[in-house]
């Protein structure tokens, strides 16, 4: 495990990537709001954001893959949340707590491999753990106990599929391309780039 302290470059990379993903997050928010509005008359509006949920975990996966140090995923999510809040996110301060939980969910599988394995198996596990952890959190926040169990099950399944695609597959694919382009060797010269 790389126990070196996070450098200024690491923090800058996390913050800049968070802003880039901010563009994606905004797209997801627009798409989610539109879908929610369409589904609202049928009582299914709560499902509107779920197909895009995995997008919110992408930045954490990518920075963890690139920087390869502990807590990078959590810090990236918190930085992304802070930037979102500063730009006027409507859920404000609670977004920071949500971000911490999302980062924790993404980071757990990497921590179990001591930040040494970055295979599809690990990113897919990260997608599942992020889904489970965030589902528990949003369940508390949105009081899933007051909803029909079938709606709650639909929330979980759609979020899981979204996470598996965006977090487990797409993020890993981008990371592999970055690796092929030599970015990983550039960022971690002499490091183990598996």
């Amino acid at each position: 495990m790389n126990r070196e302290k996070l450098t200024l470059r690491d923090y800058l990379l996390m913050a800049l990537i968070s802003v880039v993903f901010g563009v994606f997050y905004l797209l997801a928010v627009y798409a989610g709001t539109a879908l929610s509005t369409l589904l609202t008359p049928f009582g299914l509006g709560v499902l509107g954001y779920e197909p895009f949920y995995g997008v919110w975990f992408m930045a954490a996966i990518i920075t963890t893959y690139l920087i390869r140090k502990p807590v990078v995923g959590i810090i990236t999510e918190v930085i992304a949340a802070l930037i979102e809040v500063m730009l006027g996110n409507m859920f404000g301060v609670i977004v920071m707590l949500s971000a911490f939980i999302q980062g924790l969910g993404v980071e757990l599988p990497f921590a179990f491999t001591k930040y040494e394995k970055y295979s599809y198996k690990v990113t897919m596990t990260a997608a599942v753990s992020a889904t489970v952890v965030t589902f528990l959190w949003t369940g508390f926040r949105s009081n899933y106990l007051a909803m029909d169990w079938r709606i709650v099950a639909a929330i979980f399944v759609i979020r899981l599929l979204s996470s598996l695609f965006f977090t487990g597959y797409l993020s890993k694919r981008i990371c592999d391309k970055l690796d092929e382009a030599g970015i990983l060797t550039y960022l971690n010269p002499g490091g183990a780039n598996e």
Partner: protein
Amino acid sequence: MIDAINPTAKTIGLLVGSILLGVTFQWQTNVLLALIGFLFLLTSNRTSLNQLARFLLPILLISASYFFTGWLFHSEENLLSMAVDTMTAAENPALLNGVTLSTRLLAFAMLGLSFSLTTDSNELVYSFIQQAKMPMKMGYAILTALNLTSLISQEYKKSKLALQVRNLPVRPFDTKPLFTMMVRMVRWSDRLSLAMESKGFSEQRTMKQQMKVRPQDIVFMIGFPLAIVGLNLLFS
């Protein structure tokens, strides 16, 4: 009113308050908290009615979607407990379930907005560095990225344009421009860190703007969550 509260104290007060809101199941408390949030926003000099209206529209849409879900797809066990608890609930528990869920979301959003729209970005980061012991590197990285937001957005558009002029279609959520941006951000982070460190940036940096914690900040930090507990007790 809320503009003058120390950002770290405001963060703690509203964060603890929002967590307490999570264990609030009375629509009356939710409505009151949403009104308090609205009052914070109305008395703030950092937000205008136009800006507020722009943010309120999506909030009301999401709140409506929760209302319909709570009304049409309610949990039977939850309705039963509500019917036992309140007389009104017994008349139309499904409707009340929808109202409780939608006002809960409204309260979360109003408290959230009363933080986002009334807090200055620089003051928030300075306060986190000085009071919450955020690493200097992290704080300045956030400010750097924030100041580069419009430039990054322009670069992203250029990346998409560069693909389009080569007759490569770019769809929403396409990874091609994203890949280009990732490479650029790696380079930017490297150059920016070199530039900052060559100018003497370090953890020992002194800050001209000193953020202070005054008694009224402590009162807000402790008083706001206590007020929510009080409202919960009042309506339960």
